[in-house]
């Protein structure tokens, strides 16, 4: 009999015996559990590390891309000036000063002097005598009334130098200053007639 015919006959006759053979073929080779565990743990060790590297690489690339984008449109300079101001403003509020000690004239004491209550009040100082003590002028042009840094005599300040303008934290308070570090003459509550010279 021809071989193919014989096989064809057997193919047609496949049944329970064939299923048994399939089962035996499926179970013929099985890997040892120790081998599977060892190789599996080796793969799981290698896998996440690679993913972590990819994630870090991705985060790094994204950061560089963002910095390049910000740098191209001046965002970095803007951000750095904002940070600079944020640091500078509290310095103007509280001034670390060396003042003569009350106990001994030769010794000195280091004190923190509160120049302004808030950083905002440092940047927007009251005018030179303009307005009453309950009415603080908050910005130019009313503050200076055309005389930046010098209080006009009409304001009752007698031409005293005012602590006006921004970033003036280096001034050392003297006996002639008030709690806000301003010359008394410039205190709108202490001197001169009420004279609204500027905008609110």
């Amino acid at each position, binding site marked *: 009999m021809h071989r193919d015919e014989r096989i064809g006959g057997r193919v047609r006759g496949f049944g329970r015996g064939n299923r048994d053979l399939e089962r035996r073929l499926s179970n013929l080779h099985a890997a040892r559990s120790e*081998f599977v565990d060892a190789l599996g743990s080796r793969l799981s060790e*290698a*896998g996440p590390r690679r993913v972590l590297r990819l994630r870090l690489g*991705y985060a790094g690339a994204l950061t560089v891309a963002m910095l390049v984008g910000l740098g191209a449109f001046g965002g970095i300079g803007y951000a750095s000036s904002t940070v600079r101001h944020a640091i500078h403003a509290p310095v103007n509020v509280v001034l670390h000063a060396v003042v003569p000690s009350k106990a001994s004239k030769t010794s000195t004491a280091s004190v923190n002097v509160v120049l302004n209550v808030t950083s905002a009040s440092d940047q927007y100082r009251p005018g030179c005598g303009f307005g009453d003590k309950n009415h603080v002028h908050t910005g130019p042009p009313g503050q200076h009334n055309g005389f930046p840094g010098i209080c006009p005599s009409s304001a009752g300040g007698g031409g005293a130098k005012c602590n006006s303008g921004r970033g003036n934290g280096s001034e050392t308070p003297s006996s002639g200053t008030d709690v806000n570090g301003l010359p008394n003459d410039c205190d709108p509550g202490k001197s001169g007639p009420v004279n609204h010279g500027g905008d609110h």
Partner: protein
Amino acid sequence: MRGNRDPLAGAEVSIRRVYAYAAYWLGDGAEAEDATSEVFENALRYRESYDPRKGEPIAWLLGIARRSVKAALAARSQTSAEVPDLPATTDLESETIERLTLSSAIATLGEHDRELLALRYGADLRARQIGELLGIRTNAVEVAIHRATARLRAELERQEGGLRATAATGDPDSAPDAGRM
């Protein structure tokens, strides 16, 4: 970002399937384990090149396994002509004999039949997956597997007949395989 699936996810099942495939060609033991390890080392190295559009992870792994097994067989033929196709030692004698009989029957099949049986029953691939891997149509794979199984069954019957004859006469030369090895 990686848009593809990880071909090494659920590695334990894949390891068992790749090992079973390799063992069909190399026999149970160290050689099949070495080949399997090599497959997964390569898979780890080239996992980024895996493209899910081209097939499932197991098919990709078996593509690597086929090359590893080929290389192992080539190395084996250079070093020795022996076929160390012995199953793992077990106390169950009958199971050992059954495995030996089956393995030796498989060894008599042609290369194509062995490959089909290794992929179907060792790696547990479906006919469609085997077709994709070998580049042939699914129904052609089904028919080829049927024929390979039939040939294997015929060989097993022949061997069993020979064993019965040997047991009856007590003459090992009367066995069908006598003088073949």
